[in-house]
């Protein structure tokens, strides 16, 4: 296999940080080369260098054997290098055709956009690589997975043959991940070379031909999936042994803490997203709600926590009717909430860590006396929580925006666990976190369960649900279609349920999620 590019001794320094330290990396034609590493290991920096967004302080880049100076994304594209960023670069009100031709417009008479010929080429590319894309659709109407395909088409349209995918699965549902992997396999079969950036071990084992692990800006090693294991990769990535499975004793279930009867909650478009859902969560158990994203999980959690009005049904927490209660009254019943999107809902990023640690208790003693905040008590409690929960921050007065994702999540966990709680509602508690932080959060959830707290865990990650839950409720189109015992469920069985199919009545179309 010919080598398409080679990075030699690439070094990039930022003030106070060595982001890339003499990195050597090669990509061969027609391979998927995964860059694996925790958040902040230097993966994205390295790829931004290759894509011309940063210039390296040291080192050379060879593309097809000759040295290349890449100082802008245009340079990169000219060399056949295209990148799909974590956050898509699309204009939502434009059609797929318009987005693809943006910047390289084809014109009639040098004046009018030639949409037809572009659409035709998009269809050709789509057929060739098995990408399902409708050139006439507006990007804002497309699912996230389809938008990602548009990004890939954009790059192929510009005749790039080296594709950099930066955390491409972070925003996808399990089915969409499968679809993406099919596309990637099709691309490499036709000679495209792919760099696949990720911190998810299983995906990398699934899709990569070779895996290079980065840690603290250095290459730890390069290996092939056949020659390694999840545990080995995790150790290379984190730098120590990582417990990938969660050890937990059998649940000692207590009385019912959360009782949901026939709950109805509407989404932003006024559609019934939660439609007659009933569920019970008992003290001392973790009840996992599995399901493909967009089946009403968000609305369920928001309805339970008072953030979204409930249209029908009843919610009782410890016997109190909280169906239409305010968020504060629900919090004061002893409910903790780890929100789905920590930066949007759970934190004020422009606040110091200390303020976020009292975000919902600031008005209670000892943090307030009358209406006056007690800065001393706030800071003392913050210092204690930072120590106890091992939050890595330069100081309790440092801005929360400067913390890594894992540490931001720890701030939320520390805050919620520092109150006396009876019920914990955790929505995607490990979304976007690296292996070390995931392990930590999982341990804390189990610890809370063992202390007799009722835990409602909502997550689209089947692995997470299966390894943590004592019971698993599968949510489909706003309802719980089945509840199974945690240890007894297989991924296949849950996958079918998530697609809305009860085992035993398997008249299944081909597109069943794994």
């Amino acid at each position, binding site marked *: 296999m010919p080598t398409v590019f080679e990075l030699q001794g690439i070094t990039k320094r*930022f*003030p*106070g*940080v*060595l*982001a890339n330290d003499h990195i050597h990396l090669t990509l061969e034609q027609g391979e998927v080369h995964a860059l694996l590493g*925790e*958040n*902040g290991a*230097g993966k994205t920096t390295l790829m931004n260098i290759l894509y011309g967004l940063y210039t390296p302080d040291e080192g050379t880049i060879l593309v097809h054997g000759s040295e290349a100076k890449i100082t802008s994304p245009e340079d990169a594209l000219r060399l056949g290098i295209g990148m799909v960023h974590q956050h898509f670069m699309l204009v939502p009100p434009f059609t797929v055709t318009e987005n693809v031709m943006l910047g390289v417009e084809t014109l009639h008479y040098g004046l009018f956009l030639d949409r037809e010929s572009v659409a035709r080429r998009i269809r050709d590319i789509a057929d060739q690589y098995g990408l399902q894309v409708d050139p006439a659709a507006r990007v804002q109407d497309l699912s996230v997975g389809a938008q990602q395909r548009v990004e890939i088409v954009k790059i192929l349209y510009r005749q790039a043959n080296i594709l950099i995918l930066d955390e491409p699965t972070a925003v996808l549902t399990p089915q969409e991940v499968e679809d993406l992997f099919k596309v990637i396999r099709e691309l490499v079969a036709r000679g495209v070379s792919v760099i696949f950036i990720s911190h998810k071990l299983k995906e990398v084992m699934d899709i990569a031909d070779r895996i290079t692990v980065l840690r603290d*800006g250095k290459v730890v090693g390069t290996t092939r999936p056949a020659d390694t294991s999840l545990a080995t990769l995790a150790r290379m990535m984190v*730098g*120590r042994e990582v417990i990938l499975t969660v050890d937990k004793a059998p649940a000692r279930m207590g009385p019912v803490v959360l009782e949901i009867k026939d709950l109805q909650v509407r989404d932003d478009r006024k559609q019934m997203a939660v439609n007659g859902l009933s569920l019970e969560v008992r003290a001392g158990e973790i009840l996992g709600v599995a399901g493909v994203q967009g089946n009403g999980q968000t609305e369920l959690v928001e309805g339970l*926590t008072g*953030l979204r009005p409930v249209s029908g049904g009843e919610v009782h927490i410890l016997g109190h009717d909280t169906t239409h209660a*305010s*968020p*504060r009254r*629900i*919090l004061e019943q002893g409910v903790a*909430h780890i*929100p789905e999107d920590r930066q*949007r*809902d*759970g*934190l*004020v*990023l*422009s*606040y110091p860590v200390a*303020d976020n640690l009292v*975000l*919902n208790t*600031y*008005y209670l003693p000892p943090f307030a006396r009358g209406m*006056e*905040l007690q*800065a001393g008590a706030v800071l003392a409690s913050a*210092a204690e929580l*930072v*120590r106890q929960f*091992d*939050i*890595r*921050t*330069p*100081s*309790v007065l440092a*801005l929360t925006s*400067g*913390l*890594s994702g*894992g*540490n931001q999540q*720890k701030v939320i966990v520390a805050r919620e666990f520092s109150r006396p709680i009876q019920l914990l509602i955790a929505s995607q508690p490990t979304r976007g976190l*690296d292996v*070390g*932080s995931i*392990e*930590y959060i999982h341990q804390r959830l189990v610890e809370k369960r063992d202390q007799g707290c009722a835990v409602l865990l909502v997550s689209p990650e089947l692995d997470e649900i299966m390894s943590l839950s004592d019971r698993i409720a599968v949510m489909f189109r706003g309802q719980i279609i089945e509840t199974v015992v945690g240890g007894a469920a297989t991924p296949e069985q849950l996958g079918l349920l998530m697609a809305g199919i009860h085992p035993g009545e398997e008249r299944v179309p081909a597109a069943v999620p794994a």
Partner: protein
Amino acid sequence: MGTSVQKETQPGIGREGPASQPRARNAIWQVLNTLSIPVLALFTALVISAFFILASDPVILAAYGNFFQSPVHALAISWNEVASAYTALFLGAIGSPAAIVVAIRTYLATGQTNGLIQAFYPFSESLVAATPYIFAGLAVALGFKCGLFNIGAEGQIYIGALTAAYVGYRFTGLPWIIHAPLTLLAAALAGAVWAGIPGYLKAKTGAHEVINTMMMNYVAFNLADFLLNGPMKRGGSTGYIPISPDIQTSAYLPKFFPDPIRLHAGFLIALVMAGAMFWFLWRTTLGFELRTVGSNLRAAKYAGINITRNFVLAMALSGALAAMGGAGEVMGVNHSISQSFSPGYGYNSIALALMGGSNPLGVVLASLLFGALSNGATAMQALAGIPIDIVSIVQAFVIMFVAAPATIRFIYRLKVEGGVQAVFTRGWGGG
């Protein structure tokens, strides 16, 4: 914070990203960094305005017509013109340092205060001019802190001034200790109600406060027009001028010095309000709520904070501050209200809040600068014959450069520190 020990024993957990910065080097550097933009903005504005000064003088323009015959002459008279203009501006705004020194010496030697009064008169006038700016700037800044864009400070100033004038002349025979505070409080209350309305509409219906406060300005202006030509019109010789009767002397804000110094208690009250606002925002639970709503509305809801109450509270407090600014002018300076008594305090205050970074101390400093500039403008016109509008141009450029700090950073090649920029208000899309 005691984490260093654990760092060694548990190296992997939640490692900081490469962006983790060394601890902020020192506070002084940060203060300098914060001040650099406004200071450079002022400097740049003065430099650019110099060209307008030159362009406004036909003699200089003529000299440039003959530039190639006598370039030195053109440049020399340009320099003289600009230097004398800015010297006059400085003398008008601050006073003559030499005269101040002499006056202090004379006072110490003889106990004569006349010289002192004359020497400090320009500076005292700058403080008088700054007073309404401080009130209105704090008002807009408080709105920003809750994520609200209060465009309506100008109207709220009028409501405050109208109320103060009415209470000031209508009630007679009250002792000063009751009448003056009553007048100020009535004005603040009226402003609070006036601005609370758009706050309530925003919270309950989502109606954008920018539109509603702006529209309520027109209501306020025309209300003033109606009242000053009708029910509140002054009788007697000034019959056709829309102006209210003079307020009772018992409603005057006290002055500290003999005439001609006009500095009145309003200036102190403005400073106290800045302090009170700081205390309220950063030391009370109500302020914490208000700032949280302004910083992240969704997180505020999540934390159980009542959004409606905070929107209404923020607008009401904002309106009260602006109205006190209007009342201060009535009670401390004019002792009546005329139809056009405000030269746009309310509109400039938006720029002041931005310039001060929505921080009470910053707003006070920015207001002092604006007060000094507008006060010095008069001297510039009188002493150097420069049109008073030049100062408006200086102010406009200061605002422009402060509102778009990227320009200043570009000109002086400043680096963005930390990359986190203050967000003054959420977008215009409502929400």
